[in-house]
């Protein structure tokens, strides 16, 4: 979980952020302005400053926000001068937009605001529908407007070409004023409140926001078109309200609540992905008639409110279908405002002492949480307050409605006379639900406790500042609250969800008053001076960008002195974790001890002779012949120790078939892989040997519990590793692969794996499992390994081993971290049209299930569909997936003439069936040797393969080129990646004209990429020193490479010199004609079909995942295959060698540069078309 930040504004209008990983409030980088409101999202924060203008603060990011401007140049042919700019009077403008209706000269295209800059000059787009035009970008047609083609024909009378230019948003980590020039007439009055949200309504990339504002006159405004590429939005539009609004709150999804002047709340109905502004208002009455609502805050499925008497309320039963909810529940605490952030977590500002409180214990099952806890994080620096008196006026002015008598608090702020460090009490829940007739026991209990608070206040005095002597006096004079006053405290908690466990608390809890004093202990009374010391007084808080998950460890609530060792190991540095001196010293001393005590005495007899050890147990075994079912078996693992100390083991499986006792055995030194196979019901694993790999017929065993399975897996894999003498972290040359379940496997390449003759057959490779869950893993021979999860999170390998189900001795203790992944489970709702009732869920008898999987063969209902295995838990409800290929209508339906057919997103006359995809997110939490690389989510990654002959870069600090494609399609280059720092430092964004899908960098810095539209690109002149671009203006550009005819490419992989690409139909292509002088090559040459992933290594070895491979006993989908016969003069190879299979999804051989025979590499040097 990467760190995110909580935003807050203090009474002086200064904006601070508090990181979930930090313990100090940090002053916002741009301090030019004072603010009265902020509303944060993950990537930005909107605010209203004291000048009543709206500002946007975009957080710095490695990926720039860029927006493409287009203009078309139109020409008509005439007999005199050929194609020229002279058009007919009826024609369009010579320079126009795509429709031809708007005049659009290149120099007339202006930047939308001062915060944008042009990235380059205008240039002609040579790309036409995925094909290069190679004719100056001209496309031809008979007339305007018509269908344009690449080729000029006899009847081509007009032509046009597209000019493009990118502009980039340049304001980062700074407040940028939202331009309001065109809104002047509509905006006579300044804004009073503002709220951002709605980022979960659509699947659009991060950046689409619903920005709502309320003006001083009580009108509600919506900012149009706020999106990733247009962070400022375009204009304000008025949304009519039935009353005068004073405050507004927009949840992350479809909730929008507004506070009215009269004290009711307005709830927006009808907000959905097609209509983010909603359609109508409903009114929700306040909890009580005498005290209206003052403030509301909406989350995904909660609404919190504060009434005018500062009481806090929780709205029960709020969700997308019922945005109004059902009833109010009063909560403990008095707040001036509350704010609901990510994951429905809640923050508030205490009404008296102005501390920021965090609601602890908010979980999906208990949305109201458990208790308020004050955030006591200090500010990063003890900022001098001397300059703040000037801002005081504005503060007093703009927070007038919140600061009770600004004159009372403000002067004492600057005086700094009495600087009492306030105790930050935890507001625990009351002992039992109190009603209006308060329990006398409580008020009696409060008296002595109050005295205790005063004491602790003086103890907590901050010793650092000089002018603190006076403080002692003021503490002495601070009146302890009389017991009678305490009895009058207005807390009437009827919060049914609050825990009721502590009836003895007030009676017995005196000893712990400092940490457990309750709300009533806060000194009341406005005559008490406000301390303007190092505890800020807060005015506003926004958690819209702050991701706190249940169980995350926050350091906000204690003032910590130093880092404990456990904290150090959790820090995100990937540098070797074992750096503590004491640890190194123990390692060293143990080595010395062994030397001292054993070196000269090895000829001594061992006291204990090693014997055979047997572990027995009961498992279930899949009997693959009649009766084809799981049968109970007894298993025994026998371990021997040879004279050389090597272990060898045999697994015996005893079973009974037809009342006949039988057994079979497996030598563990022959086992090539153990694969956990988890599904809804069984904890099972598959065991392969080379023979069983060829047969596609593993031994399948199941245990009754997950723990039991893990024990066996750990023991068996340890035995396998021991018999092969494999121990510890994989070598830098290791071959990595991933199964379709996200399990990660690694294999140590033997030198004869890539030999010329006497190849080691692929099916003899031994794979061992690494903990974690990934979709993609890529490595290079310097030990840099990166992975990408199903949720596109990027991970870097930490150097550990084990984790996940590989526990115990087979796992390292350090460098193993928690890893989570999220994926969606999809089911389909199918309907058939009939003339009477239209589309219904009643199909023909021959039809598929009305709720099914994608194929229609399996029935899958919302209720019956479970997460993929017991490791996964649901984290969302079912929702309609609009992002399916082919497009959908507004309700998510896709139409077709019949099942199964190709679906399209609109209804035609011929369509009689329709379907829509429902998705539900599930999450897995595991652990493994991986650390997250925040914050950019990736789609593909490639690390430069380094050949062993490569003379340069012997230093471990030498830079390693790593390229990636973000999940949005941006091409990125990672800076600062080295053997010592595999995570690198930052991303450099490389501009493209369209979203990309795959990228690969070869050993000689040849970068190839594939765009989402299936076209290929080559990036010129990438060099070690300048990994990305050499010249920023003209740039070394992407050369568009035509795809193989009628094929859309999907993936590309570049080795030493070979370039291979894969298309959507499973065809593997080799790029022919690649020479040092012409690195783009000349043509695609077909190599094979039936391929779904390719990896080309530093020896130009070609490995793939094949779709279906036939074995003697079965068919195996997703099989690791190596191309045989690949030689410098025959880079396409001759045939395939089949390895492990049955659900493999990904392989990377790009780290394996070890080759057995020396003369081979020399031969390659002599003849290979090396383009370095």
């Amino acid at each position, binding site marked *: 979980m990467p760190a995110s930040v909580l935003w807050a504004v203090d009474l002086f209008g200064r904006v601070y952020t508090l990181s979930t990983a930090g313990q100090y409030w940090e002053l916002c980088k741009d301090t030019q302005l004072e603010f009265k409101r902020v509303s944060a999202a993950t990537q930005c924060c909107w605010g209203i400053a004291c000048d009543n203008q709206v500002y946007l603060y975009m957080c710095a990011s490695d990926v720039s926000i860029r927006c493409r401007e287009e203009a078309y140049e139109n020409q008509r042919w005439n007999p005199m001068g050929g194609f020229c700019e002279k058009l007919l009077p009826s024609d369009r403008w010579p320079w126009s937009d795509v429709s031809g209706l708007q005049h659009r000269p290149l120099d007339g295209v202006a930047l939308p605001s001062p915060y944008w800059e042009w990235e380059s000059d205008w240039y002609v787009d040579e790309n036409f529908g995925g094909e290069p035009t190679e004719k100056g970008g001209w496309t031809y047609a008979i007339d305007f407007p018509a269908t344009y083609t690449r080729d000029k024909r006899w009847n081509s009378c007009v032509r046009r070409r597209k000019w493009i230019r990118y502009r980039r948003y340049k304001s980062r980590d700074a407040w940028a004023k939202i331009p309001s020039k065109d809104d002047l007439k509509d905006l006579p009055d300044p804004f009073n409140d503002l709220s951002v949200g709605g980022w979960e309504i659509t699947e659009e990339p991060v950046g689409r926001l619903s920005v709502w504002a309320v003006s001083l006159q009580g009108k509600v405004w919506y900012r149009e078109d706020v999106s990733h590429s247009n962070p400022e939005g375009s204009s304000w539009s008025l949304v009519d309200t039935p009353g005068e609004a004073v405050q507004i709150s927009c949840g992350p999804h479809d909730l929008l609540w507004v506070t009215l002047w009269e004290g009711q709340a307005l709830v927006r109905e009808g907000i959905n992905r097609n209509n983010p502004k909603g359609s109508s208002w409903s009114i929700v009455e306040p909890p009580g008639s005498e005290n209206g609502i003052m403030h509301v805050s909406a989350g995904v499925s909660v609404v919190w409110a504060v009434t005018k008497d500062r009481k806090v309320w929780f709205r029960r039963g709020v969700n997308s279908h019922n945005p109004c909810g059902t009833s109010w529940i009063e909560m403990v605490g008095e707040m001036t405002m509350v704010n609901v952030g990510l994951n429905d977590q809640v923050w508030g500002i205490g009404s008296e002492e102005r501390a920021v409180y965090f609601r602890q214990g908010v979980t999906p099952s208990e949305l109201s949480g458990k208790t308020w806890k004050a955030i006591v994080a200090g500010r990063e620096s003890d900022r001098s307050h001397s300059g703040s008196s000037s801002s005081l006026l504005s503060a007093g002015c703009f927070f007038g409605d919140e600061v009770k008598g600004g004159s009372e608090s403000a002067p004492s702020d600057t005086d700094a006379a009495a600087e009492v460090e306030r105790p930050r009490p935890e507001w625990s829940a009351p002992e039992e639900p109190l009603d209006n007739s308060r329990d006398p026991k409580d008020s009696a209990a409060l008296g002595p406790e109050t005295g205790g608070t005063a004491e602790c206040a003086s103890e907590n005095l901050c010793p650092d500042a000089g002018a603190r002597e006076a403080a002692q006096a003021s503490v002495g004079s601070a009146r302890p609250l009389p017991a009678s006053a305490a009895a009058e405290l207005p807390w009437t908690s009827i919060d049914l969800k609050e825990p009721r466990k502590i009836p003895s608390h007030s009676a017995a809890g005196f000893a712990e008053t400092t940490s457990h004093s309750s709300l009533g202990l806060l000194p009341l009374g406005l005559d008490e001076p406000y301390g303007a010391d190092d505890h800020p007084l807060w005015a506003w808080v926004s958690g819209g960008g702050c991701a706190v998950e249940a169980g995350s460890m926050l350091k906000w609530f204690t003032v910590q002195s130093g880092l404990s060792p456990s904290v150090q190991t959790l820090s995100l540095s990937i540098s070797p974790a074992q750096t503590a001196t004491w640890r190194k010293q123990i390692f060293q001393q143990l080595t010395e*001890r062994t030397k001292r*005590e054993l070196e000269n*005495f090895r000829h001594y007899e*061992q006291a204990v002779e090693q014997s055979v*050890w047997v572990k027995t147990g009961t498992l279930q075994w899949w009997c693959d012949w009649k009766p084809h079912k799981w049968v109970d078996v007894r298993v025994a693992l026998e371990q021997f120790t040879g004279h050389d100390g090597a272990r060898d083991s045999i697994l015996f499986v005893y079973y009974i078939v037809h009342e006949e006792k039988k057994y079979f055995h497996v030598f563990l030194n022959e086992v090539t892989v153990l694969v956990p196979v988890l599904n809804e019901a069984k904890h099972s694993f598959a065991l392969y040997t080379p023979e069983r790999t060829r047969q596609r017929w593993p031994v399948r065993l199941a245990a009754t519990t997950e723990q039991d399975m893990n024990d066996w897996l750990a*023991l068996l894999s340890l035995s396998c590793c021991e018999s092969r003498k494999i121990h510890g972290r994989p070598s830098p040359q290791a071959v990595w692969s991933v199964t379709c379940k996200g399990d990660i496997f690694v294999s140590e390449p033997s030198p004869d794996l890539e030999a010329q003759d006497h190849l080691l057959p692929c099916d003899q490779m031994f794979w061992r499992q690494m903990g974690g869950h990934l979709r993609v893993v890529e490595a290079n021979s310097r030990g840099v390994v990166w992975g990408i999860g199903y949720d596109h999170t990027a991970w870097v390998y930490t150097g550990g081993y084990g984790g996940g189900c590989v526990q115990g001795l087979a796992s390292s203790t350090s460098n193993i971290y928690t890893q989570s992944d999220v994926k969606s489970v999809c089911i389909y709702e199918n309907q058939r049209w009939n003339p009477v009732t239209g589309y219904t869920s009643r199909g023909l008898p021959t039809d598929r299930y009305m709720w099914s999987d994608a194929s229609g063969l399996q029935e899958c209902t919302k209720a019956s569909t479970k997460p993929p295995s017991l490791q996964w838990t649901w984290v969302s409800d079912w929702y309609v997936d609009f992002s399916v290929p082919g497009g959908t209508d507004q309700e998510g339906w896709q139409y077709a003439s019949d099942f199964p057919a190709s679906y399209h997103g609109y209804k035609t006359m011929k369509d009689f069936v329709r379907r829509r995809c429902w998705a539900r997110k599930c999450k897995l939490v595991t652990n493994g040797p991986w650390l997250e690389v925040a914050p950019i989510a990736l789609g593909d990654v490639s690390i430069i393969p380094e050949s062993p002959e490569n003379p340069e870069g012997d230093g471990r600090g030498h830079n390693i080129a790593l390229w990636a494609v973000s999940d949005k399609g941006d091409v990125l280059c990672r800076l600062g990646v080295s053997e010592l720092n595999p995570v690198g430092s930052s991303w450099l964004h490389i501009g493209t004209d369209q979203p990309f899908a795959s990228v690969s960098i070869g050993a000689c810095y040849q970068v190839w990429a594939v765009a989402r539209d299936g076209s290929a690109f080559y990036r010129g002149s990438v060099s070690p020193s300048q990994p990305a671009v050499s010249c920023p203006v003209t740039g070394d550009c992407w050369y568009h490479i035509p795809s193989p005819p009628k094929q859309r490419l999907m993936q590309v992989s570049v080795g030493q010199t070979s370039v291979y690409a894969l298309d959507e139909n499973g065809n593997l292509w080799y790029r022919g004609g690649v020479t040092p002088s012409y690195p783009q090559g000349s043509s695609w040459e077909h190599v094979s079909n039936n391929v779904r992933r390719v990896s080309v290594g530093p020896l130009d070895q070609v490995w793939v995942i094949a779709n279906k491979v036939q074995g003697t006993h079965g068919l195996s989908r997703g099989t690791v295959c190596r191309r045989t016969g690949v030689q410098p003069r025959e880079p396409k190879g001759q045939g395939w060698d089949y390895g492990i299979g049955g659900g493999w999804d990904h392989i990377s051989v790009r780290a394996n540069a070890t080759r057995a025979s020396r003369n081979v590499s020399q031969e390659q040097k002599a003849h290979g078309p090396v383009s370095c």
Partner: protein
Amino acid sequence: MTDDKDVLRDVWFGRIPTCFTLYQDEITEREAEPYYLLLPRVSYLTLVTDKVKKHFQKVMRQEDISEIWFEYEGTPLKWHYPIGLLFDLLASSSALPWNIIVHFKSFPEKDLLHCPSKDAIEAHFMSCVKEADALKHKSQVINEMQKKDHKQLWMGLQNDRFDQFWAINRKLMEYPAEENGFRYIPFRIYQTTTERPFIQKLFRPVAADGQLQTLGDLLREVCPSVMAPEDGERKNQVMIHGIEPMLETPLQWLSEHLSYPDNFLHISIIPQPTD
């Protein structure tokens, strides 16, 4: 060595080269040759000296043989202390191999427990493991184990099977994720200079302020005399498994990695060798 797991291996496979000699006053039929053996540091003397016993019995008359016991430089060796501890405490500064005298007569009743059979060792070992888990987990882990798991721990030790032992023992070394360590650290501190056999107290791995306690913290608390005065140099060595961990080493880490198979940290305090 790069990983903490390797420490477990090194600790387990620690061996002390030992030379067993028969006590001079024992009556033999012919001269007894010394017997050389690599003793596992983590095991118990009477558990691994069957060969020694057989070797010397060959030269003795049947009627002169009674319970075997061992002695080093006049000190009877307690079989119920792990071998590594005995060596660190009594012999760490002397030259290798370790010269142990074998006795068959005059059993020192006041110094040693009788060891009638391996069952006695097993009972002692298991009671230590249980006591340690009582300190670490309020006995929850050991009580949840099955009888066969207990047996596997013992058999692992007896047969010197690291994997077999640790397959079970790792469960005893786990602690809840929300805690920073065990409830209390099972440790025993031995000093040759005192009459008291060892010091054992309740000590938590994490201080009240959340800081991890170190070896130094432990010593300061339970036997302050060991710690050097502020100015002077330390007069003692603090030894576990033949090495001297730095006093900054977190106790929890030590407990997880340098405990003996009985799950106790056996810490020897011995005088600084003078040379």
